[in-house]
């Protein structure tokens, strides 16, 4: 079964070619630009273009209110929304707000967890894309030890 990943951004450059070459056949959509963006607005613009962002209560975004250590903050995004193709985690106050994008295949559950760095107390956003619509939920995370110096 092939996954239906967005092909919006094809990455240019040799590095990308190398990566593609090492994953023959992988549907590939790396948003280099989105990871380099230094504002949440620009991240969203690269990832979702002009699509309106709809606040949603159907997204479970688990993130501690107060992070034990900003270098390692557990984050989970899960949703009951159907046909999810993409999940993204954005930390407004990080130098580059985009932390991770997950391309969710048809046979995967929209439920991912990872651990991320949060430089200082910040608004955190989880985005979920489904059937051409983008949903978002917000959390706030307080950081007492920065994730960068440690």
């Amino acid at each position, binding site marked *: 079964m092939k996954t239906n990943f967005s092909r919006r951004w094809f990455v240019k450059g040799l590095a990308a070619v190398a*990566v593609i070459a090492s*994953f023959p056949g992988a549907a590939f959509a*790396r948003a280099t630009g989105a990871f380099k963006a230094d504002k949440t607005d620009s991240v969203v613009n690269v990832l979702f273009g002009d699509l309106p962002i709809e606040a949603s209560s159907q997204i479970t975004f688990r993130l501690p209110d107060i992070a034990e250590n900003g270098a390692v903050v557990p984050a989970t995004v899960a949703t009951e929304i159907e046909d999810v193709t993409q999940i993204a985690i954005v930390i407004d106050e990080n130098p580059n707000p985009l932390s991770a994008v997950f391309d969710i295949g048809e046979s995967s559950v929209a439920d991912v967890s990872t651990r991320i760095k949060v430089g200082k107390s910040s608004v955190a956003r989880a985005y979920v894309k489904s059937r051409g619509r983008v949903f978002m939920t917000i959390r706030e995370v307080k950081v007492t030890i920065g994730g960068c110096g440690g």
Partner: protein
Amino acid sequence: MTVKPVKIRGRLKGVIANIKCLMPHPMETGTRRDDAGELIPAHYIRTVTCLHNDSEVMTAHWGPSVSKDPYFSFKIKTASVGDSIKVSWVDNLGETSSGDIVLK
């Protein structure tokens, strides 16, 4: 640095497989300095690809703000005993690694 394999654990609950992985990797942001005050070059995993019986079910794209020795867990909808799971990554320096398990 020697590249180490991805460590994977899978648990089947009915037809849903909960997959957890840990990938040894420095995940350097490129903004940290070493003891001598020199910038440590960026070194981070960019793409993680997850295969279920050789077909791709999940791809993660990461920036350097994923924590050191990244942890990643996801779920597969229709899995059964004997299915294979493979997780591999590529970093910004072109290094790769992977790991695989068979669901029990």
